[in-house]
């Protein structure tokens, strides 16, 4: 795969797959956070406290980043299912928008977290 120069649409697609697999594991982190946030006022406070830990912050950011990209790429699929942007040019344009928008939103999520 690395020996062939892949078009941007291929990268958009493989990243959608990779983030999907990653998010399945990442859901365990989100379920854990939900559990802690609802169990008791003490665990809620403890969760807020532990979110100051840079390592956990990084993990949450990674899950959010995966979620942002996977969501945008998924919405692109839904738009293409409606028959919009199905041409080669449309596919490249869509992939570019998804990647660009993801980078912006992932950075904003990082700023919000820190």
């Amino acid at each position: 795969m690395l020996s062939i120069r892949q078009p941007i649409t291929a990268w958009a697609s493989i990243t959608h797959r990779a983030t999907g697999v990653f998010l399945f594991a990442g859901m365990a982190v989100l379920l854990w956070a939900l559990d802690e946030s609802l169990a008791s006022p003490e665990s809620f406070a403890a969760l807020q406290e532990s979110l100051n830990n840079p390592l956990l912050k990084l993990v949450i950011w990674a899950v959010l980043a995966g979620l942002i990209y996977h969501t945008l790429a998924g919405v692109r699929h839904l738009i293409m299912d409606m028959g919009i942007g199905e041409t080669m040019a449309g596919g490249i344009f869509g992939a570019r928008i998804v990647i660009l928008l993801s980078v912006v939103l992932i950075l904003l999520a990082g700023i919000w977290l820190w």
Partner: protein
Amino acid sequence: MVIAVTSLGRSGLYDWLMQRVSAVILLAYFLYVGWVVACGVDYGAWKELFSLTWMRVFSMLALVSLVVHAWVGLWSVFTDYFTERMLGATGNMLRLVAEVVCGIAMFTYVVWGIQILWGL
């Protein structure tokens, strides 16, 4: 050869539709919860929100959608890469193991979710 017996609906069209229905539910759920968290909540308001029946139903709907969505997605990934053509005889074995592990994980997520929401 990869057979479709472990696909969600044993039909590509059905899987395709379920993938999209579950995606829209998940999109709605994450947008809503993300908006609530981004606005900032204290424990009282957060607990109150998740004590409402419609929120619990919405959350369970999202969790079941997650399982459906993940099964279709992971199945597609496994049947593309963990195959006899790609990996020889180990491919079939690896695919089976991956499907079992993910299936157990999904079941665990659902039970965990019920436990969180209804506090058993």
